[in-house]
């Protein structure tokens, strides 16, 4: 049997800037069942513009690992349906995005929820479960 060399090769990492937003369908799923499949599907994803995806060699529905020194999550990629100027990707506000938010607050009590700097790379790992995002 041949050795799967691919699994030893790390996918290239790209710098990514992420901001968070709200989505009514995800909020609806949260109200109903925050531990349910719908909430997970609508939260554990990142929306990226077409041009940025091409630059990074990422396709719609690819699975990616997003990580920085504060944490890491595995989520699915969704191609943005809009014309994006690029440079910023979007995650709906959720425990998945919160896993990547910095603890630097300057003593002012408000974290940088809207500006996450991280690395993104393709992965075959399972989507991060909500259970594993607990303390």
């Amino acid at each position, binding site marked *: 049997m041949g050795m799967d060399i691919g699994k030893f090769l790390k996918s290239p990492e790209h710098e990514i*800037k992420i*901001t968070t*937003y*709200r*989505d*009514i*369908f995800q*909020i*609806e*799923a949260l*109200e*109903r*069942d*925050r*531990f*349910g499949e719908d909430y997970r599907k609508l939260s554990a994803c990142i929306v990226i513009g077409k041009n940025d995806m091409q630059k990074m060699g990422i396709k719609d529905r690819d699975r990616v690992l997003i990580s920085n020194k*504060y*944490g890491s999550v595995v989520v699915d990629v969704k191609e943005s349906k*809009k*014309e994006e*100027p690029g440079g*910023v990707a*979007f995650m709906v506000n*959720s*425990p998945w995005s*919160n*896993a990547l*938010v*910095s*603890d630097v*607050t*300057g*003593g*002012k*009590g*408000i*974290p*940088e*929820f*809207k*500006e996450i700097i991280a690395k993104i790379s393709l992965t075959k790992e399972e989507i991060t479960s*909500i259970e594993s*995002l*607990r*303390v």
Partner: protein
Amino acid sequence: MITCTGCALLCEDIEVIIENNSVKETRNACRRGAARIKGCVNRMVPSIDQKPVDIDISLKKAIQILKNAKAPMLFGFGNSTNEAQKKAIQLAKKINAALDDTSSFCQGHLIEKVLHNKFRTCSLDEIRNKADVLVYWGSDAQDSQPRHLSRFSYFPRGELRQRGYEEDRLAIAIDVRESNTAKICKGHFYRIPLKGDREFILALMDALSGKVPTYDPKKMLELAAILKKAEFGVIFAGIGLTYSIKDDIDILVALSDKLPNFHIMPMVGHYNMRGFNENLFNETGFVNRVKFSEGKTIHDDKYSIVEALKENTVDALLVVGSDPVSSLPRSIISHLASIPVICIDPCVTMTSKIAIVNIPCAVSGIESSGTAIRMDGKVVELKKAMASNYPDDENVLKRLLEVI
């Protein structure tokens, strides 16, 4: 008719059809509201160490934890009635606790400005009747307060705006992202770079003063001309704007001084977050982040939930109607694993899953009544539509207060 507690618009025109003590159907509610009214699938049960117990036993354990704590903190309350919030303030005073709410890392700074009359604001009813220029700034109302545009701001006919959005109203969006609200503001969407709000405000102030702005002069002058012509303008300040200018909120006050026909409305998410701010303000002169100490109130950023957890300065946490494990950065909440957490909520949450004590309560506005404060400051009545096996959070807090 009941009042929806899905967001701080507190829509009072909701019809519910109830069968066998559960909501079968809702009318008039948006998607978010309907889901809130129909309720969660995971109702909480009373527990200690995640093992089910009688509710009285869980209350006794909560009392013991709060009595033994040297630096307790009470947190949450955005989903509690005014009556429950007032009980929480009394309880915090009684046990010399720190007290904070979700506005601490949300719209607290802006609501504080409103309560101190730092800028003009107005009611949602005035907006419906008079507003002609609407600026959604860092705010995606279509997703967060879904009936805002249809009930109050853009679409309805009003006393002075008989032709509604077709002719009488203009909606503008200023945002990092082309949100669903921005899509409605066709031709008037100003996309700004991440954290570019401050620079945008400065350029807009230049344009309003007749100077040529350094930043995108053509668009800035065009926007300034629209704003100057407004008879009754409103800036809906969303969380995107508040976060972006959090270190210099006064810049928004400076902008509002340049726009005499404009009003500023903080866009609030949780149904009674403004209520908490007003109730605490009336009692102490502060909207959040306080600690009570032998009858005195100390206000300091270190009593914000974020700093308190980061710096490990609390030794017990009572959470009411909130899920900090879900809504705060994971890099900040690790301290929660090392202190006793008491959770009062109708539903199982990420926080209740790590809590030592869970005390279930009725869902306010459906299973219990009370009052709440709408995002514009109007007091709204919440009506009870069906029975619950559990007391409401006001009663749970009342029992804690009586015994401690």
